[in-house]
Every structure is written in C-alpha cells, then in structure tokens.
C-alpha cells in the first residue's frame, strides 16, 4: 500500500506492506538511530515523535502514520548533541544502545513538562530501559540539562 509522510521535515513516499512496523520502515529509510531492544513494547529504544508526541515505533501502526510528521533523532541533531554532552559529562552511558530512544524521550519531556521535578522525570522516563547502568548518571544529566535550559530561558 502507498504511504506518504514527512520524515524529519522531508516528504517521503513509499510502497509498503500494511503490517510493516513503523520501526522497520524508519530503518529502511536509513534512520538507524531507531533501535529494536525488545519484542514486548517494553524498552523504549525505538521511541520517535509522531506529530511531536513520543511513541514506540515498534508498536505504532505504520499505516496510521500516513500523512503525519515523524521525527527521529536524526532530525533533532542540535538538541541531541546538546543533551548528549550532559550524558557524557556524567559518564551516564556505557554501551550507548539505548541512548537514541532515551534522548528522544528527554527532548519530548522538556517540551511537554514545565519545570519537572525528580518524581516527574522518573515517571516520564520510566519506559526507557538501560541494561548497563543504574540510571543515576542519566538522572544527573537530565537535571543538569533542565537547569541549563532554564538558565538559557532566563537569558543568563
């Protein structure tokens, strides 16, 4: 079936099988930041934004994405680099496989929530699993990144 959507701002048209997961479609388009980390909609590694909302691309029906705007980490290079530096500074990541999905959801959180506290952060990011670490470095990085965004907003 034919599908047309906007991928990171570019119009994409393709002929697909209607049972193809959005995840496979995105990887076929060269978006290799989108990873499959589980088979049970439980790890958060395949997170992408559909019309600005974070969803699991392994689960979201591809045909439903027809006509929508999809953003992967490849389309958020500047923000990803900015937050990535905070992750690195805290020594948060080890193998890095879960980073793209995690960063997508951190970006979605900072866009959706105003001044999230630690509980809000944990709640929003609970669906992003990392099997190397204990999330403490990530939490420090997220807090420092939010503080950095706030001070930027205040024009400091």
């Amino acid at each position, binding site marked *: 079936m034919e599908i047309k959507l906007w991928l990171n701002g570019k119009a994409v048209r393709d002929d697909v099988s209607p049972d193809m997961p959005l995840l496979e479609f995105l990887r076929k388009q060269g978006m290799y930041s989108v990873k499959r980390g589980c088979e*049970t909609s439980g790890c958060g590694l395949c997170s992408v934004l559909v019309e600005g*909302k*974070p969803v*699991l691309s392994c689960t979201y029906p591809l045909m439903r994405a027809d006509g929508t705007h999809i953003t992967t980490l490849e389309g958020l290079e500047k923000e990803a680099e900015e937050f990535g530096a905070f992750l690195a500074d805290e020594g948060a990541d080890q193998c890095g496989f879960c980073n793209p999905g995690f960063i997508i*959801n951190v970006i979605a959180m900072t866009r959706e929530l105003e001044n999230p506290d630690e509980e809000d952060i944990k709640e929003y990011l609970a669906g992003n699993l990392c099997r190397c670490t204990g999330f403490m470095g990530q939490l420090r990085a997220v807090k420092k990144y939010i503080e950095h965004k706030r001070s930027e907003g205040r024009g400091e």
Partner: protein
Amino acid sequence: MYKCTGYVFPESMEEAYKLNQKKSNKIIAGGGWLKLGSRQYATLIDLSRLGLDEIYEDEECFKIGAMVSLRQLETHEGLNLYTQGAIKESLKHIVGVQFRNSATIGGSIYGRFGFSDVLTMLMALDGFAGLYKGGSVPLEDFAKMKYDRDILSAVTIRKQKNIKTVYSSFRNQSTDFPVLACAMSLSEGKIRTALGARPARAEVITAELPTDIDRFANETANSFAYGGNMRASAEYRRHIAYVLIKRNAEILAGGKAYGD
C-alpha cells in the same frame, strides 16, 4: 507481530461494523496487544479517523471516545479533579509515556484483559461501555460478556455528586503488569470496590460504608476469587487485596470529595 494484507480507515461506524462482521478482519486500536500476537488477519480496521479521540465533559457525564489514548485520559484535568487524581494513578504505571500515547481506552476496555488497570478503574467509577449495536452496558456486565463482532465506540462515566475515588496497585516491578489492582469509590454512603489482576478480569462489589474498616477489608478481600501465575500466588494476592482495600477505605473515610 501480527500479519495483515489490507488496512482500511472506515469513514463511518456503519462501514466499520460491516467490515468487522468478517471473521478474518480485526479492529486495530493502539496495536499494543495485537502486536504481541502473531495472528494473520485479512484487513485491519483502523478507527482513528472517526473522531473517537476526544473526551467530552458536561454537567452530567464524561464521554471518553474509544480512540482516546491512555495518556490523554491520564492528563485530563476534569477527570483528575473528579477522581482526586485516581485516574492518573491508575495509568501512570503502565509501561511508559510512549506506550500510553498510542494505547487506547477502546483497546483496553474491549480487550477486557485480566491485568487491566483501566478496566478496574473505570468499573469503580460505574462506567458504561457504549456499543455501536448493543447500546450502553455497565462495565461490570461488559467485562463478563464474550467477545463478539460489535464495536465499542466510547466509555461514559455519569457524574455522581460528592464522590470520592482512590486507586492503588501492587507491582513486583515498576512499569510491569500489576500483581493486583484496586479501585474504590464512595458515593452516598456506598463503597464500590473493583479488584483487577487477580489475575482474572476485574469485578466489582458494592457495600455500605463500614464502621470497622479492618473487618470490611478482610470480608471484601475474601469475597473475590484469586488465582496464581508467574507474578504471584493466589494466597499472596488475597493478602495484598486486604492491604490495598484497607488503605483505600481509610483514604475514602477521610479527605475531600468531588465538589467539596
């Protein structure tokens, strides 16, 4: 992962209903449950272009469209005000924000899953399933019905004055399915206790507001049936039920009601 050869967006409920009469076709809601299976379908019927993705609130009721996402319900101000935040509590432990952005009320309720937090919560609120052909059916009856080829289009909650609501669940691990889910509401001296994840489908029991909460918790917990599975034994669940019912009843006995 499921397989399918066709995928349609019906333009009316009647069209969706007709397509759904064919046994090899299937309605796809959020897709989260279908994805876990490996069934082969002819045509998947997508209800996402029928305007079923909104929550309407008026003086009398809330009407939640079948394609409203769990996240929409979780963040709905009116429903959280009405339930003293119980709605949010019942949803925020389900997988993650990304999952809840695509999982739908229709999928959760139609599925009548034993593990369902959503079914447990909405049953305690005395919700009604709105079926395209079957009309309005109380959720406690809907939960007992067999799967048929009708379509769930909405869930309605009739507002009750001065209602108090509380929700709690017990999980072995954050974001996992619940070991037990307990939703309770108090309105006009009557307590509704809905227990889900026993691990069977949620059921509800109504009783007078008790004076002895400990005894009430014990008796109520004993009046449900429990089963064991990989997450917990039946005995363990019965004990957790007693604890959650007691805690929830204590919260209902104090605190503020909707409209206070």
